[in-house]
Structures are given as structure tokens and as C-alpha cells.
């Protein structure tokens, strides 16, 4: 896997593919794509060193719109896929991306355990508080009163707190961003990639088609008024009580990343070592 050290630095545009997104005009995900490519360029990475992994949903279409290696997996299983890639090939930069349904509903268990396992990868959730791809059903982050065909009159269930869950499960870096601020978001993604262990970035990314009300988000988001913390207790309390629109790096931990990675030297046929146990009397 020779990496051409002499290549000129890649620019944000070099991380974009020529595949036309299926996204609706105005969808927040366009901005996330832009932010991601900017972040990768800012870090001086090359497209072939990066793997973008996703599940299923509008947002999960993102891998093919980058010029990186990509894997558009199945609904809810992006994190295990990404974990496999990173553990097998620790030298690669692995980005996992998807929606709130993919990550917090069907994929909720992997989210818990990816945080805990703390493999050095970055997880971006484009949260639009709805299932876009299946045309507008409530997700775990949806407001309890939001009326829809599947939940007439609203779900009546209060949305849960992905950031607190990430913290309680052991994520090492927790941030919230708004798709409408691509430069700030790019910076946050770059920060997340650089931080060791599992980094989680929730990006508020409006669904203009099924949640036109989200166009109002731009007026509600604001940068965190207090400084970053590495104290889980303080972070828990702060995240538990915020209104969901405070942006910034909200927790930065020091846990040791997952350590059982495949060594590059493990490849060749080398099993003699392990067979002796079966030989009788020897």
C-alpha cells in the first residue's frame, strides 16, 4: 500500500467524487459533505488513505460522494463495519457517517459499544430528527409532538440525549456542530479525527423536505458559552441539561484507545507456533 509521498497536497475538491448526490436541493447533508472534504484536506491526508463507512439513509449516501475508499453498508451497522476496517488496518483514517435513525435507532447498540471500545475512529451523525429516506417517520431525536402518518399526534416520547449516551458509554471526544456553518464544522471534524480513540460529532443537518421547520435551526444554534471539559461528571450534567443547540467540543477525554489491532506483520503463513499444543506427548 505504497503512499506516494511526493504527491502534492490534496485540496477539498480532490476529496469529492463525480457522483451526483440524490439529496434534495437545500438538504443539510450537502454542507456536511463540504465540511468533511475541507477537514480531510486541512489534515493533509490523501483520498486513498481515508475510508468513509456508512449505513442506510439519505445521509448514509455520503461515501460515494467522496473520492475516498467507501463502504455503503446496511442499515444500522456502519459502526461495526468501520471498526472492522480500522482494527484490521490501523494505518488508515476511518470516518463513519450516517443519520439519526441509522445511528440511534436500529444502530443504537453499536453506538454504545463503539464508544466503549474506543477504537480510534470518527463518527459523524447527520441528525435531522427524522427518517428522511423512508419519507418522514420519527427518529429517537424527534420532538414528542411532531405529527406524522406513522405516529398520528406525535410519539409522546421525549427525545433522548445522544451526547450523554456517548459520554456514559466512554466516547473520548464529543462535539456538536451545525451543518450551516461548514467552516466551523470542518474544524471540528478535523479535531475529532486527530483526537485519539472514538470521536463522536453530532451535526445538526436540516431535512428541508420532511422537516421544513428545521430551517429555523440557524437562529437557535450557538457556540458553547463555557470552555471544554475533560471531567465526565461535569460534562454529563452539562449535556443532560442543554437544549440541543449548544455547539462546540463538549468533552475531550484521555482514555486509552482500543489496543488489539492487527499487526502489519501478521499476514504470511505462520502457524507452526500454534500447532504444537495438539501433538500428543510432546
Amino acid at each position: 500500500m505504497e503512499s506516494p509521498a511526493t504527491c502534492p497536497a490534496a485540496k477539498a475538491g480532490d476529496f469529492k467524487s463525480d457522483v451526483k448526490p440524490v439529496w434534495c436541493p437545500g438538504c443539510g447533508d450537502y454542507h456536511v459533505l463540504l465540511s468533511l472534504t475541507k477537514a480531510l484536506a486541512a489534515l493533509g491526508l490523501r483520498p486513498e488513505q481515508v475510508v468513509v463507512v456508512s449505513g442506510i439513509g439519505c445521509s448514509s449516501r455520503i461515501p460515494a460522494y467522496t473520492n475516498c475508499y467507501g463502504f455503503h453498508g446496511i442499515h444500522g451497522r456502519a459502526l461495526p463495519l468501520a471498526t472492522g476496517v480500522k482494527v484490521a488496518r490501523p494505518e488508515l483514517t476511518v470516518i463513519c457517517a450516517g443519520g439519526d435513525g441509522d445511528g440511534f435507532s436500529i444502530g443504537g447498540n453499536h453506538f454504545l459499544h463503539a464508544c466503549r471500545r474506543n477504537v480510534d475512529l470518527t463518527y459523524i451523525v447527520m441528525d435531522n430528527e427524522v427518517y428522511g429516506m423512508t419519507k418522514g417517520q420519527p427518529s429517537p431525536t424527534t420532538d414528542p409532538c411532531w405529527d406524522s402518518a406513522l405516529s398520528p399526534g406525535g410519539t409522546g416520547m421525549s427525545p433522548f440525549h445522544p451526547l450523554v449516551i456517548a459520554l456514559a458509554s466512554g466516547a473520548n471526544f464529543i462535539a456538536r456542530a451545525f451543518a450551516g456553518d461548514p467552516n466551523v464544522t470542518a474544524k471540528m471534524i478535523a479535531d475529532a479525527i486527530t483526537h485519539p480513540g472514538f470521536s463522536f460529532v453530532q451535526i445538526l443537518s436540516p431535512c428541508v423536505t420532511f422537516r421544513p421547520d428545521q430551517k429555523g435551526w440557524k437562529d437557535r444554534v450557538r457556540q458553547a458559552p463555557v470552555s471544554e471539559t475533560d471531567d465526565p461528571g461535569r460534562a454529563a450534567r452539562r449535556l443532560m441539561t442543554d437544549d440541543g443547540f449548544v455547539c462546540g467540543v463538549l468533552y475531550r477525554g484521555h482514555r486509552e484507545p482500543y489496543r488489539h489491532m492487527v499487526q502489519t506483520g501478521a499476514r504470511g503463513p505462520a502457524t507452526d507456533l500454534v500447532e504444537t499444543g495438539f501433538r500428543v506427548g510432546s
Partner: protein
Amino acid sequence: MTSETDRHTSVSVALVGSGGAGVLTAGQLLLQAAARVGLFGLLTRCVGPQIRGGESAALLRLAGAPVHCMGDSFDAVLALDWNNAERFASEIPLRSDSVVISDAGNGKIPDAMLAAHPVMVELPIAATAAAADGGRGNMVALGILSAMLELPAATVQAVIATALADKGAAAVSAGVASVELGRGLADQAGLRLPVHRDVETNPLRWLLTGNEAAGLGALRGGVRFVAAYPITPATEILEWLAPNLQKIGATLVQAEDELASINMCIGASYAGVPALTATSGPGFSLMLEGLGLAVAAEVPLVVIDVMRGGPSTGIPTKSEQTDLNAAVYGMHGEAPHLVLAPTSIADALFTTQWAVHLAESMQTPAIVLSDQAIGQTTAIINPPANVKFFAERAVMRLPQTDYTRYAITADGVSPVTLPGTPGGQYTADGLEHSPRGTPSSRGEDHALQLDKRLRKIASFNYGVHWADVEGDGAMAVITWGSTTGAVREAVRRLRATGRSVRLIALRLLYPAQPRQMAAALSGVTCAVIVEQSHSGQFHRYLRAHYDLPPEVRLIARPGPLVLRPGELAQRIGNRSQ
């Protein structure tokens, strides 16, 4: 007739006692001693649902030549106690000349055993153990049986010394003393049950379970990433692999569930590292969606399903061949892939290794259907040959511009780039796609990719390994998996009586090999299909995919009761007259 044959070439003994009594340890040591003197043999463990305590039994068969199944009945049963033994009495059939050895007053002998009117022998096992310093009943039992089997005292002592080494010298000498006392009891009672040897062979032996053999096969095949979730009876594959992968710089990830483990394997394999997971029925069901992704995205990997009694949670500790349907047909949509099954414990090594090779060659998932009877039985075998199958994927190292991941090729295999390779970037996808990998719902693209994915496994040359085919004659017995052992012995016995019977034991279950099967069946007018199932899944599978001879008979029985060679010889033989 059949059990006669059996009796002369092998000896079967059962050690019975409640969980804490240590009969499984004693059985294991007995097998080790037998291995050291160059015998062959099998040891299966029979346990109840309890984690500790509860009934248990060690079932052994020892022989002078390789054996692949348990015998028709037991020559001797030794019980330290009979607590709850009636729960598995039907798994220990006796004859009128079987010897049942037990202590006076150690519980009620199961009716099913008494019904055979065996020879009853009372020995003061508990008292003997109590008399010795640190003496234990299971070690006395080991002494009795080792003497009966005429295993040299020195060998048994050496085995104990190794096994108890880390418990200290006192434990070793207490063990040795108990064994000596036990040998004395057997000698006094004149109990003898020697194992007949046909020929002296090179006495180098391996001792391992089918689960360990599968683990080694995976390593030999090139697997360097394992992700899995524990489940009976597959866990030992993982527990063998975990430290051994570590030794060679590879890794095992304990996943949060089977949905995660299969997808982790897909990720690792996509990244270029051959990957494997092992599970049993319930976990396998959870992997089906992921397996479909591996088919569609063309990512190789191996799943070992160590089958147990089903449906649902079923009977976790007992064997059955009933995940065949799920393995062959379980994925939604058209999802051609590979299904293989080892035909013996030793073959679990070969078949798993071959599975890795095939999966990597064809960039598709391979399912290996092992079962509890293979996985959790310990066998003494000849050292396995070193076959050359290794993971060799068609990797494109210097991609051209406009790399076409899912290019339409003659053999259906499209060279793949690995992440890190400049210019080879593509997005793998479970959505139907154009040759470039871009999602497509066009009928033309769908047809091209469906054809290609089928072609690569249908046109591959699997060589002679698709099945073990032996013998000739107008009758063929067709079987697979752990049942093969008993069928093989039944066929051998029938041949010994002058009847010609063919054996066809499938190792490659999917894709079907109609040309090879036609050749194997040429001249056959009657096929007997043997499987451990209730509905005859294998039979239906064969009907669907092969042209069978005019007459077809089915011998099917669900687990946990195994098909025994004598019974099979009789049922097959009746038909072949």
C-alpha cells in the same frame, strides 16, 4: 452381526457422575493415555443444563485404527454416582454382556440400562478414594478403566503428571496413588477390556476437538481477523483462536452481538485482512442480513456455524444437522454463496482452510456447517497433512484510471483494490450497482451483476474436494457432516460382508455440482440419504438441485440421539439385498 464387527475393533466405555465428580477430567486423561500409546479414539461429553453440578458423562471409544463415530453400544459403564443419569441413559445403549461398574448405594441405575440385563459389578470406589490421602473417586475410576483397557501404568502416570503439574507435586502423587488403587480394584475383580490393534502404525498422534481443528484450519487458511460473540457449542473455536491469533500479531474482537461480529468481519475483509466468525443457530440467524451484504458487495469471509438442536434456542448442548436450510437458503434476495461441511473432526481443519481459500478466491462468503458432535468431541487422529490452500484474493495493485470495481469478467471475479492504493478508490455497496459500483435500479445492471455473482461460484473448479466418493455398486448412501462417520463405518461393515455400496459424503453443499454428482451416481439405482434431522432437509435439498436415482430412501432422525453404525448397516443392508 454388526455389533460383533464393532466389538472386535474398538472398545466403548462411559464414565458417569454428577457435575462436580470429575468424570469429564478422568475421561480426558484416559483419552490422553490412549493417545500416548498410539491408539485412536473419541471422547464426547454429555452434560446437562447446569453450569456446575448436574449430571454428566464422558463417552469414549478407543480403537487400534482411526474411528469417526461412537460405537453401537457400550462395553462398560462406570458410575461414580447415578444422579439424574436417567436423563441421558438412552444415549448409552448397553448389551447383555456390557459391564456396569458402580459403588453400592450410589443411586438408582437408570431403567433403560437395566433393561439390557448387563453384567453388574460392585466396586468400593468411594471407600477406596476416601482411604487414600487426597484420593478422589474420579482418579480411582481412571485407574480401573486404564487397567481394564490395559493402558500401561507408566503412561497414565505421565499423563497425570502433565495434567496436574500446575497443581503441585502433592496433587500429582495423590492422583497417581488413587489410580494405582483403582488399577488394583480392576485387577482383583479380573476386569479386562483390551483394545485390539490391527497393525502397528507410527504412533505419532494429534489430540484435538473439531472446534480446535476448525480454528487451526482458519489460521492455516490465512485468517487474521476474527470478530465473534460467544455461543455454545462454538465458543471453543473462539477461545482457541483468541490467544493463538494474539501470538501471531492478529486479533479477535469480542463483539456486542452477532450483527456486529459479521459486519466487523466484512469491514476487516474489505480492508484486505481475511476474516472469520463462528457461531451457532441463533447467532447465525442474526448474521443473515450481513451475509447478504457480503454477497452483494462481494466481500469474502467465513462463518462457521457449529450446529446444535433447534429451532430457536433449542438444545444448545446437543448436535443436529438442521441449519442446512438456513445456510443454503436463508438470505433474502438472490444471494449465491458457498456452503461447506466437514465430514469428520480431522476434516474440520481441511474444510475450514479450504473455505477460507474459496471465499477469498471468489470474493464471497463461505459458510462452514460444523456441528456439536464434531466441534465438542475430542479425537485422537493421525497428524493432518499440510495442504496448501491459502487466502489468495485477486487484488489489483496498480489500478488503471477509471477503476471498475464490479467489472464484468469471464469468470465473474473482479479484481479488487485495497484501501490505501492510490487510484483504486471505490465505494462498496449493498445496493444494486453498475460495474463501477454506483447505485443503479436499472434492470440491465441488475441482470449483469446477478449473472456475474452466480457465475463466479458456479463456474469455479472445485476439483475432487466437493465430496468424499468411495466404492461402487448399484446402491449409494448420500450423507454429509458428522453423520458421515457412522455411515462410513456402516458401509465398511457392509463391504466386509461382501456387499457393494457407494458412499457419497458432500463437503461442498452449495453450489450444487450436478455433473460430478451424475458421475458419482452413474449406475446407481437406489440412493439412501442419511441425515440427523426431522424433516429431511438434506433430502429436500438434494431433490431440488440434483437428479436422483429412481429409488430414493431417507434415514433421518433429529438430535440428540445419534445414528449408530450398526443400526445404519442394518437399515441400509436390508435395502441392498
